[in-house]
């Protein structure tokens, strides 16, 4: 018995798209992610991975089932309430980094707590800490275009770390990286996991999945645990 909530509890979560014919992207998903987990979800494209990530990231609502994030029933949240929980509890890492090209590395990282109303001074201090954590303090004033792919993804990870999120949600984080940069980013995930961060990586790459402590396979909208 732990005194903390599981980070993620999915209880019979389904997501059906109203297309013609309707597509059932998620079928009765059950998933529990405990604090400190390092979980990989593997599956081919079209298996429903992205839909699952969107639901987990509060970017999309399930059509059936319950989703508890840090013990909060997300179904009762309003649109802006979901935005607030998303900003506070979830750190996103995208395949394409999603850095703003016209802002410096530091400013990009500082965007993270912008919508939590954190004063600028505090954000700047924490951005420096987060950049230190990913080993990019010396790139603080650079614009993203001058960074390598691996460095860009580490900036994105620093941004995701800023608000001390409950869950680091990574969507094909190494999809745009060469093997050397992939190694460095995965090494960073290992470090962060060792520091106690809860990480969920969605990937189609088995090598990436192998680095995770726990692996779940997704096929046609259904989950199955892989040892």
């Amino acid at each position, binding site marked *: 018995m*732990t*005194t903390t*909530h599981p980070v993620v509890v999915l209880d019979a979560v389904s997501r059906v798209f109203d297309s013609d014919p309707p597509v059932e992207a998620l079928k009765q998903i059950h998933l529990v992610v405990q604090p400190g987990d390092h979980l990989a979800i593997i599956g081919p494209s079209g298996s429903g991975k992205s839909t699952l990530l*969107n639901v987990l990231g509060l970017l999309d609502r399930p059509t059936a089932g319950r989703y508890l994030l840090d*013990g909060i029933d997300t179904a009762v949240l309003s649109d802006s309430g979901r*935005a*607030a929980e998303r900003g506070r509890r*979830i750190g996103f890492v995208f395949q394409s980094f999603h850095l703003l090209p016209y802002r410096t590395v530091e400013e990009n990282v500082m965007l993270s707590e*912008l*919508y939590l109303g954190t004063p600028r001074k505090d954000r700047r201090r924490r951005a420096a800490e987060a950049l230190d954590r990913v080993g990019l303090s010396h790139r603080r004033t650079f614009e993203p275009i001058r960074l390598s792919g691996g460095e860009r993804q580490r900036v994105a990870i620093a941004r995701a770390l800023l608000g001390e999120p409950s869950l680091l949600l990574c969507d094909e984080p190494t999809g745009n990286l060469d093997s050397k940069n992939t190694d460095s980013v995965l090494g960073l995930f290992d470090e962060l996991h060792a520091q106690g961060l809860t990480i969920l990586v969605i990937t189609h790459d088995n090598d990436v999945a192998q680095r995770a402590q726990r692996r779940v396979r997704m096929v046609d909208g259904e989950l199955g645990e892989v040892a």
Partner: protein
Amino acid sequence: MTAADVIEPIDGEPTAEPADAEPVVVGRPRLRIVDLIDETLAGVFARPARAALTTLGTVLGIASLVATLGISRTAGNQIVGRFDELAATQVTVKARTSGGGSSSGSGSSRRAPLPWNVEPRLDRLNGVVAAGAVAEVSNPGAVRTAPLRDPENITEQLVPVYASSVGFLDSVRGQIVNGRWFDQGHVDRVDRVVIIGTDVADQFGISRLDTQPGIFIGDELFTVIGILSEAPRDEGLVGSIILPYTVAQERFNTTTPERVVIETDIGAAQLIAEQAAVALSPNAPEGLNVTAPRDPKRTKDAVQSDVNQLFLLLGLISLVVGAIGIANVTLVTVMERTGEIGLRRALGAARRHIGLQFLAESTAMGLVGGIIGASVGILVVVAVAGSRQWTPVLDVWLPLAAPFAGALVGLIAGLYPSIRAARMEPVDALRSGT
């Protein structure tokens, strides 16, 4: 009911939902004003060239509005200024034509003759600078110079002859170039003196007055005591002869003045016009016809509205074009920054924050356009006024209101793109943008 009751753990671990640790909901996301300004400026200055070009439409619109209003105000002021010099300070009083000329026969029985002694009646009125009565002498007879008969020259002419009161010279702003004007003493004594205009003096070869030249009007001999060089209110006087009204009454039977000319202080013409008839004819003021200049304000307005309308229309059109430009570019920007919108939503931005940011960006562009446009417009007004040697005149509110007008244009232009941005689904925005 707790989660543990309904969840079937897929990895076999027990999932407990302890009742003692109630989760705390974050609540609503919020964005500090300073941060909004920060993000807005960063967004605008991210593409400075585009922002500058986008702003150009508003600059042109505001500049042409300011310039139009300023120039027409300046020009209007100029016209009124010139107007003031003579006409705006002149009031003329005439007796209404009685009898046959009038369409209504009812007033024919009563005639309100103008008095000759207008000066004591009118000088009491505050605002009167000078007043004088005048009448043309009917059938005075031919005019000739008596002492010298030069057969080579034409020595006999028909010249208009006027009878006037003492104040008449000042009321028409007349200037005596030689000799003097007659005074109340001449009037009271019925002295047979005349003032002749320069044209008449030239015709009759009179240039010196120390010889006390005489002039015959009909069979009557008069002494020339002064030569009138100019009379801006009554240009014809330089070609005529003027004599004291008492002399005209005695010799030519000129009974009443035809008109009374009043020079007023600037701005007093309307007031004097109301009072003059009563002052001149207390018993029958309605028998007098007072001619006053048009209200200067209305003259100015009329001039302004004539000049303005076309350019004002052009200014408004360019403002609309500017607004469309801002709307268009903001819309393109929204589409280009779809990925950024998705990211911001992922970072916790509510829809309103997204909308607010784009609205603030378009408003900022409009505001900057308004400020630059107002500056350019003022420069144009000053340049035009300078080239015409006018005094530039500008309403104070104009340069102050122009930036706000620009901001308003930006705000309105940004509404639709902002709503589009706010309505984007974060999932779609993240997928389509990079």
